[in-house]
């Protein structure tokens, strides 16, 4: 295994992408993810790849659609307002079943908002985000190492399901520096018998999302839905301190990272608190949470927003007589482990005593 190196979160994503065979990058600058295009512009040439600074996020996503349509591995990255602009393109990619990796190092909104870490794009990422009934796989790293590892995985998942994959991070995960271990990507082969290569010695191929004949679009939507359902086998999550836990804190991404210290503090003080961290936000680890809720009744969602993942948590465990509490921190400042401990203690006292 390679030596650990200190790497910035955004750069780890770019490194993971190139290691996984991404050879085309299209993007438009926006804070806090500019290290990604900057890294790609410098390093893609080393591997005969192509970097384009596009005229907009709209152009970037459509360049991604084009490059991926040939079967190549390609990526775009942006942050919240830019991701909003990409939604029409993502919808077309889902409808036409064109893979691709889209990184959202989200910032705060609505509107121009600010550049602080935020998890306000959870709904947009997990509910499709654009028009039409579609889903993308959503991966939520919580460390620089995971930025690297999950980016590699994102390319495999995109190819496997012929679907865009979104990596949802934030300013904290993009800007922080941590030691990571790089590893060799083990290439997996996926059939590309749909790709645009020129109709040489075979029938022509079509990548489209328009279906006008009677019943065609109904069938197409059900077929896509079946595919989204089948993605459940990719569900990933992490748990900590679950033995004997009386309250399970559920959180993803950067805030889950902070909560790891908080939950440790709680355990040190004899409070039986566990942590559940979804890594795939779509598909959401509902079955695992449901199973836990047979023995533990108290849940608490903690998010850097006013309550979005909370809804998925309630859908997973809220059907029984479980308690689902919430602490939300809209963007503007990052909560410290102490502050979060204070909030968890309040709920713990109320529910457990």
């Amino acid at each position, binding site marked *: 295994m390679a030596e650990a190196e200190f790497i910035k979160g955004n750069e780890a994503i770019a490194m993971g992408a190139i290691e996984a065979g991404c*050879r*085309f990058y*299209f993007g438009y600058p926006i804070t806090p993810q500019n290290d990604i295009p900057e890294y790609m512009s410098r390093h893609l040439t080393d591997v005969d790849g*192509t970097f*384009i600074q*596009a*005229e*907009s996020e*709209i*152009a*970037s996503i*459509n*360049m*991604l*659609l*084009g*490059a*991926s*349509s*040939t079967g*190549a591995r*390609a990526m775009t990255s942006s942050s919240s307002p830019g991701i909003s602009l990409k939604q*029409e*393109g993502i919808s*077309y990619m889902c409808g*036409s079943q*064109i893979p691709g990796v889209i990184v959202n190092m989200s910032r705060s909104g609505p509107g121009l908002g600010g550049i602080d870490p935020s998890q306000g794009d959870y709904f947009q990422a997990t509910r499709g985000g654009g028009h039409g009934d579609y889903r993308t796989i959503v991966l939520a790293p919580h460390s620089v190492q995971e930025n690297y590892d999950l980016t590699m995985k994102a390319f495999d998942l995109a190819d496997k399901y012929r679907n865009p994959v979104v990596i949802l991070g934030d300013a904290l995960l993009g800007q922080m520096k941590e030691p990571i271990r790089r590893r060799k990507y083990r290439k997996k082969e996926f059939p590309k018998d749909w790709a*645009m*290569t*020129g*109709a*040489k*010695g075979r029938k*022509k*191929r*079509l*990548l*489209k*999302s*328009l279906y006008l004949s009677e019943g065609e679009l109904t069938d197409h939507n059900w077929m896509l839905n079946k595919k989204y359902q089948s993605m459940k086998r990719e569900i990933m999550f992490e748990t900590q301190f679950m033995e004997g836990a009386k309250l399970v804190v559920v959180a993803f991404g950067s805030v889950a990272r902070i909560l790891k210290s908080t939950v440790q503090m709680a355990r040190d003080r004899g409070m039986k608190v566990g942590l559940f961290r979804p890594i795939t936000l779509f598909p959401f680890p509902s079955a695992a949470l449901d199973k836990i809720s047979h023995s533990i009744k108290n849940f608490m969602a903690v998010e850097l927003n006013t309550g979005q993942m909370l809804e998925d948590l309630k859908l997973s465990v809220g059907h029984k007589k479980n308690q689902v509490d919430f602490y939300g921190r809209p963007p503007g400042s990052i909560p410290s482990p102490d502050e979060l401990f204070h909030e968890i203690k309040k709920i713990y006292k109320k529910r457990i005593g």
Partner: protein
Amino acid sequence: MKQTFKRPKALVDIPFHFCPGCHHGIIHRLVAECIDFYGLREKTIGVASVGCSVFLYDYFNADVVEAPHGRAAAVATGVKRASPDNFVFTYQGDGDLAAIGTAEIIHAANRGERITVIFVNNTVFGMTGGQMAPTTMSGQETTTTPFGRDLETNGFPIKMSELLTELPGSTFVARAAVNNPKNLMKAKKLLKRAFEVQTNGEGFSFVEFLSACPTNWKMTPKQATERVQEEMIPYFPLGVFKGGQE
């Protein structure tokens, strides 16, 4: 008897759905003939746009990817960069290319993308029922300019060929019409040159076609063809603007 009308190999043997007197069918045919002429069918990747020509992917016997409305030039950029040995073309209407997709076409041209753009200017949004396009002529009645296009409030009919000619990144820019046999012959010559600009790796090539839309112009096919000659050509002059010589 000599067979004079043979369907190009690059077209599937199904009838076009276009309205009677629509020039889209003629322009499809010209593109297909050029693909045949250069033996490019098996190397072609077409990029379809959103407009009356969206079914291009059904008519061409070649690989085709559908682009969102206005984004064909960006999609083609991605395709060509990833697959430089393929022949890549877009086929876009005036709403698609000159309204919603203005940024994409200007920047694709400016980067000198090695793609061929077929631009069909019929001075209206055909597919959505005849609303004003950026190319709608002064005084022209459309469903959203019921009193005629007023330059004071709607601006001027945009000349895309002239605009793209100014960009140092474009290599070949021309405007053609298919309203009579003479113009048709010229159009084919221009289109061939546009193809060669890509196959020789010279750069970005663009051919604007003045095209009749009898349905939304509320004209007979004959009147529509006359309008191309009498109203459109004087304002949108034909010819090569850039890159004629080989």
